[in-house]
Every structure is written in structure tokens, then in C-alpha cells.
């Protein structure tokens, strides 16, 4: 009896020690064999080639852990809110836009316990209180090479200067305002983005409004790509993934990289998920070198593990944003300003979008 008790205690201690070890030192990309057997996780993202790439990146995690992975989407914060409020959260890991995890941190998204994730390979300044990046990309100024020939636009200041650079502009009108673009617009109006106040949002939006009635506000990434391929717009604010595809398809456009706007998708764990640790395990596996390489190869988005070296052809690598040169040219929006002022900015931006 005694012996048996001792034996049990021993096993228990060993188990506890393993658990403690596993918790104290997670390694990005690794998961214990069979650790999630019989469990189900639902990953929510934006569908299409992107979510297919994410599923491919997580295949090893699924095979090894024994988890059943379900895919759902697209991500809608309103739906997530309904789940959290009703106490029935079926989304275990949610890929969101840049801002929501900051705006709804602690309300809809859990504050992350960084002892359960290996964030050591994530580019600096990208881990939030409630999120880690899901991938990186950029918003880049693309211009029509045939229209501007020897005198191409070089910066957002040129983008907003219709006198020096006549032509039709295309802007992301898919919904929310892009903080970085408004900051660049505010700079054009003579302000300092670092010292921006709520009243300055109007000034920034006025700069956009002054581009005139010909300005195109594209609603979807596909539309922006189509605008480039058909040559409908002379200068376009574009997501790098779409810019790459447009150029690959023969659009005669080139990027002006100065002050390209750094954007990312975020990985989050909603408040009230059934198995928080399983969600952590998924994200930790996702952050791994190999997963990120697969993701980049399948989607051409920039991996967020600094050791990842995806095998991609030149047309893709031209639009990856993690080279030292690109990192130096990138412009990061002022998160501290936009998070508390998100609603105000959205309100004003929507009015612009509605023709006011």
C-alpha cells in the first residue's frame, strides 16, 4: 500500500514537473505528441487562399497533437461579440484586423499569458496585450508606370498632390479607415502625426476629400487588383499581396516603397473559450519557423517568424516586407492614438465614404 502510494506520488510529481516544464518553456512550432487528442479547435479567419495557407501551416500541428481543426469565417467582430455576450463561444482562435484586439482587449479578447507562447522570433513591437501577429503585409503606393514615366511619385505627399501628379487615385474604401494613411494625409496638411489630436482627424480626412470626385474607393482587394490590371486608376493604395498579383498578371504598375504602411493580421483568443490552453497550443505552433514558411509560400504574405526562409520566386519576394531595406522604409501607425479614437475616426471616415 505504502509502496503504491509512493509510486502514485512519484508519477504525479513527474507529471507536474513535465507540465511545469512544458509551461515554462514553450517553443514556437512545437506541440506534444497526442496532447490534444479528442479535442476540437475552430480557427476563424478570412477564408480564401489566406485561410487555406493557414490550414496548411497548421497541418503538422493537427497531425501531431491529434486535434480536430475546424475552419470558420469570415471574422466579424459583431459575431464574436454576440458569442461572448451569450456565453457560447465556439471560435477558439480568431484572426482579426490590426486594431480590434487593442480596442476590445480584455472585453472580447483574452489578455495573453506570454509564458504559454514563444514570441521570441516575432519582429519587434508587434506583440500586443491581447494579440500576436498572424502575418505581416503592407499598404503600398502603386503607380502607373506608363502614365508617370520618368517622373514617378515617390511618397504619400505625391499621392495627395494632384497638381504635380494629375490622375485618378484609388483608396481602400473597404470599411475602416487606415490610420497610417490618415497620418500621412495629416502630414501633408502641415501637421505632425506624432502630436495628432481628435480635431486633426478632420484635417486629415479633408486632405483625402480634396483628391476630388474622381477618386475611387475600392471595396475589396480583388477590386483594387482589377483597377490596376485594367489601368482605371493612376495611383493606387494597395495591399502588397494584391499588388504582387496585379503585377504578376501584367499590370504596368510599380511600388513607391517610401513610408509603406506596416499592417498585420492578429491572432487572438476570445474571452470565454472552452479550452484556453488548446488555443494557446495552436497559436504557439502557428508561430513556428516551418509553419510560417509554409504560410508565406502558400499565401505570399510576409512570415512573422524572423528565422523563416520561405522558398518563393522573385515576383513574390519583391513584395515581401521583411527585408532590412523594407523594414527601414516602413511606417508604423500611432496605435496609442488610434485605439481610443477608433470610433470617432470610423464615424468621420464613413461620412466621407457616404459622399459627405
Amino acid at each position: 500500500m505504502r509502496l503504491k502510494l509512493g509510486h502514485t506520488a512519484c508519477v504525479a510529481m513527474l507529471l507536474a514537473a513535465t507540465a511545469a516544464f512544458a509551461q515554462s518553456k514553450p517553443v514556437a512550432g512545437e506541440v506534444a505528441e497526442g496532447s490534444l487528442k479528442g479535442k476540437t479547435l475552430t480557427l476563424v479567419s478570412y477564408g480564401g487562399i489566406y485561410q487555406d495557407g493557414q490550414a496548411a501551416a497548421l497541418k503538422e500541428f493537427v497531425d501531431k497533437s491529434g486535434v480536430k481543426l475546424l475552419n470558420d469565417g469570415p471574422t466579424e467582430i459583431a459575431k464574436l461579440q454576440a458569442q461572448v455576450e451569450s456565453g457560447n463561444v465556439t471560435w477558439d482562435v480568431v484572426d482579426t484586423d490590426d486594431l480590434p484586439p487593442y480596442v476590445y482587449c480584455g472585453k472580447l479578447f483574452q489578455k495573453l499569458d506570454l509564458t504559454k507562447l514563444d514570441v521570441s522570433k516575432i519582429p519587434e513591437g508587434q506583440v500586443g496585450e491581447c494579440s500576436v501577429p498572424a502575418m505581416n503585409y503592407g499598404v503600398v503606393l502603386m503607380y502607373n508606370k506608363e502614365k508617370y514615366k520618368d517622373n514617378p511619385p515617390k511618397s504619400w505627399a505625391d499621392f495627395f498632390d494632384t497638381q504635380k501628379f494629375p490622375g485618378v487615385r484609388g483608396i481602400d474604401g473597404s470599411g475602416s479607415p487606415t490610420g497610417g494613411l490618415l497620418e500621412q494625409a495629416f502630414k501633408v496638411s502641415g501637421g505632425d502625426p506624432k502630436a495628432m489630436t481628435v480635431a486633426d482627424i478632420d484635417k486629415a480626412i479633408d486632405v483625402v476629400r480634396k483628391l476630388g470626385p474622381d477618386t475611387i474607393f475600392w471595396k475589396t482587394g480583388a477590386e483594387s487588383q482589377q483597377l490596376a490590371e485594367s489601368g482605371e486608376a493612376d495611383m493606387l493604395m494597395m495591399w502588397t499581396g494584391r499588388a504582387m498579383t496585379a503585377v504578376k498578371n501584367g499590370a504596368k504598375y510599380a511600388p513607391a516603397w517610401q513610408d509603406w504602411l506596416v499592417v498585420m493580421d492578429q491572432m487572438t483568443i476570445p474571452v470565454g473559450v472552452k479550452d484556453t490552453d488548446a488555443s494557446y497550443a495552436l497559436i504557439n505552433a502557428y508561430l513556428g519557423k516551418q509553419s510560417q514558411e509554409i504560410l508565406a509560400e502558400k499565401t505570399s504574405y510576409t512570415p512573422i517568424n524572423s528565422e523563416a526562409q520561405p522558398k518563393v520566386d522573385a515576383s513574390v519576394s519583391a513584395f515581401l516586407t521583411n527585408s532590412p531595406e523594407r523594414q527601414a522604409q516602413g511606417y508604423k501607425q500611432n496605435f496609442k492614438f488610434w485605439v481610443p479614437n477608433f470610433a470617432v475616426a470610423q464615424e468621420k471616415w464613413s461620412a466621407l465614404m457616404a459622399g459627405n
Partner: protein
Amino acid sequence: MSALEPTTPSVPKRAGWAWRPFALTLPALLLLVAVIGYPLFTIVLRSLSEPQWGAQNYVWFFGTPVNLTVLQRTFVISAWVTLVCVVCAYPYAYLMTAVGPRVRLALVLCVLIPFWVSGVVRTLSWVILLQDSGVINSVLRSVGLDGVRLIRTQTGVVIGMAQVLLPFMILPLYSVMRGIDLRLMRAAQSLGARPFRAFFTVYLPLSLPGVYAGAIIVFILALGFYITPALLGGPRSTMLSTLVQTQVLSLLQWGRGGAMGVVLLVTTFVLLALAAPVMRSRHREAGRR
């Protein structure tokens, strides 16, 4: 009729006979209550209770100029779409009644096949046709004319929406026109009416119920359009649904979104109530003639 009278009183005597038809509609009623009634109630409730009880969301709606502009624009665009649909559908539906069964089948298929294609696909096809470098403009330019700006204008939105909604106008019109005895036209002409006169005093009034039915369906469906104005329109053709979407999906302001929905619904009811007497009187007039 009077000969049958003695037998009829025995019918209501049977217990439960009177409400039996209602019992048959019970599944439909339950479904309506569950999928229309309850959500609608929630929308009204949330528009009055979020973030706290009161009329704040309505005060906000009517105090924000952009909302009123867009509300008005939503009705104007829907009215244009309805008008375009009537003008296009009327001769088409008439043709369907006038031709033989084979051609009619072909005409019906022409209406229905696009109806089975997803609205998004059809709208994207319109993008290809309407854009500045699109089919319409290249044809115009190749014959030496100036191109016209169609995409990102209200005209473009009206064209796209009218095409999507056309079946909702043609089908009710056709079903009414099919019941009109074409010999009445001949009778009118034999009494000395010119074809035009015969049409306007005989055929048109008889077909009006179809026009009204179709117009109401098209107008109401148009009010809630989202995809087509979003893809074919620019800022100056944004409709109310887009603003609702912004409030709910990106700002999580369910109360404001709800208030916008309620305003749209109530305004629609008011407009239909105003139009109802006109429709009814014409109806009666047509009946009398």
C-alpha cells in the same frame, strides 16, 4: 346562388371548421414569428435600450446630416430602379402573353436564368461592362464617341440594380397580363377606338394591378440593397444598408444600426400607406370600366 343557400348554413355548425384554414397556416405563421417577428422585436428593443434606455439612437440618427442624405438617396435610387424596371418589364411581359408557347418558354428562361445566378457574380459582370475601360466605353470610343462615366455613379447603380430586380417586375406583370382577355382590345377597336386609345383605356388599367404588385416588390427589395451599390457605386451612391453595416460590424453599435433599420422600415410603411389610396382608387376604376 339562392338555390344553394339552404346547404351552406350546415357548414359552420361543424365544430372547428371555421378556424381550420388558420390551423393550416400555423407552420407559416410560426416561421414568420420566429424568423421575422422575433428578430424585428429585438432590433426595435435594442435600438431603444443600447447603450442605455432612451431615444438616443434616434436623436443621433436625425442629428447626423450624412444619415439623412443617405436615407433620402436610398429612396430616390429605389424609385429610379422601380421606374426603370416598369419601363423595361412592361413590353417584355406583354410580349410573353402575345407569343406562342415555345417563344414564351425562351422568354421565361431569359428572365429566370440570370435570376439563378448569384447577385455578386452578376454585379461583377456589370463592373466589367460599365467601367471606364469596359465593354460599353470601348464600343463607344471605337465608333468615335466620347466615353461616359457609368461605374461609380448613381446611373451605374440604377442599371445594375434594375437588372438584378427585373424578374420581380416581369413575373407579377405577366401573371396579371395573362388573365386579360385580348379580345377586349379588339372590342374597343371595333367600337372605334384607335389602338393607342384602346391600350390606354382598356389594357393599361386592367394590367395596373400587376404594375403595382411588381413595383412594390421591386421598390422594397431595392431599399435594402447592399452588394450592388457597394460594387457599382461610389461615395455618392452609398445606400443606407452600407451605413448600417458600418455601425454594426465595425463599431458594434447595434443600437444605432437597429435605429437605422427601424427608420427605414417606418418610412417605407408611411410611403406605402400614402400610395395605397391611389392604387386602390385606380383599381376600382379599372374594375368599373
